[in-house]
């Protein structure tokens, strides 16, 4: 049993579920306390000691079914089918007759032949599993190997030998004067069981492949999704993206919380303590500590929503929305040529309608103009520069394609002077910066961080920088 559990653990690990050695040991302890006749309880006991992330539960459930029962059922299914295929034979009567005849004969059958003859399903299952272990079936890697491994398992089982034995047995029975009709039935039965056995072995191999490769397709999909550019995402992809953004935002929140905690408790404040305890005759009953001012990071976000970056800005707005749930002091603006504030929309509306609204200009700007970064920055400089201070991080999202307008980089310079950080997220690769109508190179000196960000992997890298 323990060996089986270790094997199961390995399969869980392969599927990306983190199971430590200590947890495997825990599961042994847990199973010691249980009676194993209830499948539900067995499953729950293994789960609670090995799987600790709620996201992994569905994977666990699928693998559990695959591992602990699948083959057991499919073997029985095969044999049942085979027996039904024989039409109406009274198998029990046949078996009884066989039994009585065998008692008088001196036959020595191999384990497998015996199991086949008596249709001992548990024994057959045991034998297949054993043979599988001996052939090293866990090394199976792809579809093409199914035939090969099935043959290996059958060889290991000694299938050919067993069927020869059974044929000899039939001959012996004939010599003993068994009724010809009965013999025919017996032959049919034996053939059917052997066929079922072969099929079961093949299924066993397929199942084994499934186990080993369980998450292959899923993982392939996720990997390619992470690399996929935001420009070409379907609705479904977007949904998956959102989940990841939520996770990133959560991570961000943790870091922020740690920082805040560190700041909280100050040093002992002697003056305050003495003042406070004057009424106790100067005996310091109440100790006072200096309170350090909390460093609440502020954030200002400018997001380009022009048509050239439409898909990216949708995603970015989503990210901004998640940030807004974490940072209390966040102001968000959208721009094309004009610049408009959408902070309130993001605060009050739910995510989808907020994003749609913002993409439509938020009722404050006209989104159907040509981008003009210079003008947008100028408006920001004129109207909102006063909101910046040395705790503010300014995030600009856009491709800096300025349609040959005046870039007015000096506006960004002033912003950079006043703010703590200026971070530029550009969906274009750095190679394209400064070419054509891109004025990225003029803005570049006035940013602290400028990163290309077109896909999730790049964004997640960037997130780490946001809190630094």
């Amino acid at each position, binding site marked *: 049993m323990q060996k089986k559990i270790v094997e199961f653990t390995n399969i869980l690990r392969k599927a990306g579920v983190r199971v430590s050695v200590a947890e495997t040991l825990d599961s042994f302890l847990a199973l010691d*306390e249980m009676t194993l006749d209830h499948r539900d309880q067995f499953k729950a006991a293994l789960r609670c000691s090995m799987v600790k992330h709620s996201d992994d539960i569905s994977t666990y459930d699928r693998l559990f079914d695959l591992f602990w029962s699948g083959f057991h059922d499919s073997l029985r299914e095969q044999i049942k089918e085979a027996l039904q295929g024989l039409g109406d034979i009274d198998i029990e009567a046949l078996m009884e007759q066989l039994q009585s005849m065998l008692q008088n004969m001196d036959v020595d059958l191999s384990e497998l032949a015996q199991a086949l003859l008596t249709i001992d399903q548990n024994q057959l299952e045991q034998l297949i599993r054993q043979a599988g272990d001996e052939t090293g079936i866990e090394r199976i890697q792809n579809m093409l190997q199914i035939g090969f491994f099935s043959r290996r398992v059958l060889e290991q089982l000694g299938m050919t030998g067993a069927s020869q034995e059974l044929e000899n047995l039939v001959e012996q029975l004939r010599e003993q004067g068994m009724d010809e009709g009965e013999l025919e039935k017996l032959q049919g039965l034996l053939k059917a069981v052997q066929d079922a056995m072969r099929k079961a072995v093949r299924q066993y191999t397929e199942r084994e492949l499934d186990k080993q490769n369980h998450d292959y397709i899923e993982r392939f999909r996720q990997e390619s999704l992470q690399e996929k550019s935001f420009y070409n995402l379907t609705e479904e992809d977007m949904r998956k993206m959102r989940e990841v953004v939520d996770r990133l935002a959560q991570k961000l929140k943790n870091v922020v919380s740690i920082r805040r905690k560190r700041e909280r408790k100050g040093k002992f404040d002697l003056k305050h303590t003495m003042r406070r305890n004057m009424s106790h005759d100067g005996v310091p009953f109440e100790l006072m500590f200096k309170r350090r001012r909390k460093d609440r990071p502020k954030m200002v976000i400018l997001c380009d929503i022009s048509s050239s970056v439409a898909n990216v800005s949708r995603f970015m707005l989503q990210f901004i929305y998640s940030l807004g749930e974490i940072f209390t002091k966040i102001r968000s603006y959208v721009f094309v040529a004009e610049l408009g504030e959408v902070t309130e929309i993001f605060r009050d509306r739910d995510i989808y309608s907020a994003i749609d609204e913002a993409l439509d200009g938020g009722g404050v700007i006209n989104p159907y103009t040509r981008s003009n970064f210079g003008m947008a920055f100028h408006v920001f400089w004129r109207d909102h520069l006063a909101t910046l201070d040395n705790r503010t991080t300014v995030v600009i999202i856009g491709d800096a394609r300025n349609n040959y307008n005046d870039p007015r980089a000096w506006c960004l310079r002033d912003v950079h002077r006043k703010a703590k950080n200026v971070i530029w997220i550009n969906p274009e690769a750095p190679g394209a910066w400064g070419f054509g109508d891109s004025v990225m190179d003029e803005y570049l000196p006035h940013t602290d961080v400028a990163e290309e960000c077109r896909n999730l992997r790049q964004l997640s890298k960037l997130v780490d920088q946001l809190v630094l």
Partner: protein
Amino acid sequence: MFESVEAVQSALEGQKYVTTKNIATVVYLATKLQKPVLVEGPAGVGKTELAKVVAGALGIEMIRLQCYEGLDEAKALYEWEYSKQLLYTQMLRDKISQVLEGADTLKEAANRIAQEDDIFFSERFIVPRPLMRAITSDKTTLLLIDEVDKSDPEFEAFLLEVLSDYTVSVPEVGTIRARNIPIVFLTSNNAREMTDALKRRCLHLYIDFPDLETEVAILNQKVPGIEQRLVEDIVELVQRVRNLDLKKTPSISETLDWARALMTLNADSLEKDLIEQTMNVILKHQGDIEKAQTELSKLLSEKAAAQRAQEPVQSTPTSIKKSVLH
């Protein structure tokens, strides 16, 4: 302690808590293996309630530690009662000068004081907080560490130490070992992912929103005397509302509140107007209510269609039912 998983299930049933096999198994193992249980799941599925009913079923005291941001050892474990210590020194001033009488040198005086300093750092001046109380209690207790995700990561690291050995070290007094290992439940709303180290030490239990049958059972258990048809209608609607993309998904406790509210209003089935008037019991955001209302009208029209289809066949049984009910 519990004898078997079935015993757990029936004991909790006795406390009016409807469990699944899964929950019962984990509770059973927790008591057998003396391991803490980390209960996760959305808000309002009865995580805290589970700890309470387990304590109730075992007839042991429950000690609760509510976590919040900024919770530290002093609030969770123990604290020196500083003012009491100071008060004692003030009141014992004469005694102290007696002790010091005849001491010629400063060194001798310091030595004499040093001999006595145990008095001021003894258990007398310790204020035990929940963790300490659970560990030093004479009887087995149930320790509930509620909303552990709200605490800071540092506190979590500190919890690890306590939960792995069930010992507490107070530098001035020494190590205090648990007399009786408490049954520990930690609950988390997943506001923050707990560290793997903590998870590794715990059994993990995920309680999700119940399925239809379980929720019906819960409602019947908790709101006695409610009409079966109303229960089914309520649960069906709530389950559908949960599938919507809402700011706050209605929890079991809200379903119960709603059922009670409808009972108070003497409703025997769900009418459109009635639902609209009482919707705010289960939904707490205006946007959510609007979304739910469109879903609601869909559900009602579907139901009406279904009823029309069944009417000719079912006409007799319903009339009988009605006459019984009135």
